[in-house]
C-alpha cells in the first residue's frame, strides 16, 4: 500500500463509503433470495445471535468478526436442523430463538464488565469507526459470497422455486441450501459493523423489496437491489454527515424512504392506469 492510499484510507468518511458500498453489493443479491425464500425472520435471527458471537470473541480474545461468524454458522445449522423436524411452526421457533439469542447476548456481554465495550455500536453499527481490517473482511467475504452465489445461481434459484422439483432434476438441494446459509452468516458477520445487529435484516430486505416492482427477472431484481442499496448508503451517509445522525440507522431510514416513494409511485401509476 503506498502513502496515497494509506492517507485516503485514513479518512473516516472514505472508509465509511467503502464499507457501506461493499456491504450493499452483497446484501442486494443475498437479500433477494431472503425475500424469495420468505426468510426475513431467519436473517433477523441470525443477526441477533451475533451479539453472542461478540461476547465469545471478547471472552476468547479473538477477532470479533470470527466470533460472530462462528456463532452465526452454528445458529444457521441449528435452525436448518430444527426446520427439518416438525413439531413447532418455523415462525414460532424463529420467534423464540431470535429474541432468545439477543437476550442471551445482552446477558453475556454484561459479564464482560472489565472490557471496554460499545454496546450501541454493535446494536446499531458504527460505520464511521470501521477500520481497514473491517473493510478487508467486507470485501474479502463479499467477494467470496458473490462468487459462490454466481456459481450456484441456477441451482439456488431452482431450489428456491421448488425443492422437490429441483431434487428430481438432480440439484443437490441440501448442499446448495447449506452454502446459502453459510453465505448469509458471513454477510451478517461483516455487515454488523456497518448497520448493526438490529438492522442487518433491514439491509437485506428493504433494497430487494424496493427493487421487486421494477424487475421482470430474478437477475434484474438482484442488480437493482444493489443499486438501491448504494443509493441508501450514499443518502444515509450524507444525512449522517450533515445532521450528525447515527450512520447505520440513517442508511436504513434512507432505504425506507426510497421504498415508500417508489411503492407509492407504483400504486399511484397503477390506480391511474386502472382508470
Amino acid at each position, binding site marked *: 500500500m503506498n502513502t496515497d492510499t494509506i492517507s485516503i484510507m485514513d479518512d473516516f468518511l472514505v472508509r465509511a463509503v467503502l464499507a457501506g458500498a461493499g456491504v450493499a453489493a452483497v446484501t442486494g443479491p443475498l437479500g433477494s433470495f431472503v*425475500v*424469495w425464500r*420468505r426468510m426475513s425472520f431467519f436473517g433477523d435471527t441470525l443477526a441477533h445471535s451475533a451479539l453472542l458471537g461478540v461476547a465469545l470473541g471478547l471472552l476468547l480474545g479473538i477477532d470479533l468478526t470470527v466470533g460472530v461468524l462462528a456463532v452465526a454458522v452454528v445458529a444457521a445449522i441449528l435452525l436448518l436442523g430444527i426446520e427439518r423436524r416438525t413439531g413447532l411452526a418455523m415462525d414460532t421457533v424463529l420467534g423464540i430463538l431470535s429474541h432468545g439469542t439477543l437476550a442471551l447476548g445482552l446477558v453475556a456481554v454484561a459479564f464482560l464488565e472489565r472490557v471496554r465495550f460499545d454496546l450501541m455500536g454493535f446494536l446499531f453499527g458504527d460505520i464511521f469507526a470501521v477500520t481497514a481490517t473491517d473493510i478487508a473482511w467486507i470485501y474479502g467475504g463479499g467477494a467470496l459470497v458473490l462468487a459462490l452465489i454466481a456459481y450456484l445461481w*441456477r441451482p439456488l*434459484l*431452482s431450489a*428456491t*422455486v*421448488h425443492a*422437490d*422439483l*429441483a*431434487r*428430481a*432434476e*438432480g440439484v443437490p438441494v441440501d448442499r446448495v441450501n447449506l452454502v446459502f446459509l453459510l453465505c448469509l452468516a458471513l454477510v451478517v458477520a461483516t455487515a454488523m459493523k456497518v448497520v448493526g445487529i438490529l438492522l442487518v435484516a433491514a439491509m437485506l430486505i428493504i433494497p430487494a*423489496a424496493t427493487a*421487486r416492482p421494477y*424487475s*421482470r*427477472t*430474478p437477475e*434484474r*431484481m438482484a442488480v437493482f437491489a444493489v443499486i438501491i442499496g448504494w443509493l441508501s448508503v450514499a443518502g444515509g451517509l450524507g444525512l449522517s454527515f450533515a445532521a450528525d445522525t447515527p450512520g447505520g440507522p440513517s442508511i436504513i431510514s434512507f432505504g425506507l424512504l426510497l421504498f415508500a416513494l417508489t411503492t407509492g409511485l407504483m400504486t399511484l401509476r397503477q390506480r391511474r392506469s386502472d382508470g
Partner: protein
Amino acid sequence: MDQVSRAGGPIVELSGVEVRAGNRVLVTGIDLSVSDGEIVALIGPNGAGKTTLIRAALGLVRPSTGTSRKRRGARIGYMPQRLNIDRNMPLTVRRFLGLAGRFEPGARTQVLEETGIARIIDSPVHDISGGEWQRTLLARALLREPDLLVLDEPAQAVDLTGQAELYRLIGEIRDRRGCGVLMVSHDLHLVMSSTDQVVCINTHLCCAGTPDTVSRDPSYVALFGESVAETMALYHHNHDHAHGVDGSIVHEHGHDQHHG
C-alpha cells in the same frame, strides 16, 4: 433409488414399498411399475399417500421396507403438485423453463409447440391462467426428454373442459414420444379414457388393474362410496334415468309426474 434394474424392464418398479414418517405409516405394501408407453394412474382419497408414493418412485424419499428400482440411465420428468411461485420472485415462463438445466436448443421449440404455450413464453408466471401454468409445468418436465413422466395431479386448478384437454394432451405425448407416464389423480372417471393401468391406494394397495376392472372392484366402491361408483356406473350401463338439479332421480319419461 435403491437399485437399478436391467435395461428392457419397467422404467420404475416399486415392490412391497412402505414409507414412514417417524412412527406413522404413510404407505405400505405397494407394488407398482411403469413400462415404456404405458400410462399408469394412481388414485385414492386425500391423504391416501399418493404423493408419498410418487416421491418414493422419484427417489426423493427412501422406503423403510421394500425396494424402488429405476432402469439404468432412465430420465424422469416430474410435475409436482401445487407449485406456487412467491409473488416476490419475478420470473417469466422462459426463465422458469430455463431452470430445468441444460437442454438441446431445439428441445424448447418442440416442447413449446407440443404444449401450446409459445404465446405466453415471455409472460410473468404470475399472470398466466391455471391451465397455462399446468402446461408450463408439463413443458418443463418434457424439456428433459424423459423416458418417464411423473405427474402429480396434472389437472388441478383447471376447469372441466381444460382438464379433458390436458389428459388428451398427455395421451398424445405418450403416443408421440413412447414414454411411460405415472400420474396421480383423485377421480378415476376423468383419467379413465387415457389410462392403461389404474392403481388404487388408501395407505395400502386397494386394487389394481385396467380402469374397467378397478371401477367394478368392491374395494374401489367401498373407498369412494356409492355416489362415485354410481357416476362410474354411467360408463357401463345405459341411462334409464337422469338426475334432477336437486340430485333426485328423474325417470326419462317421467317429467310430467312433477306436474301430476
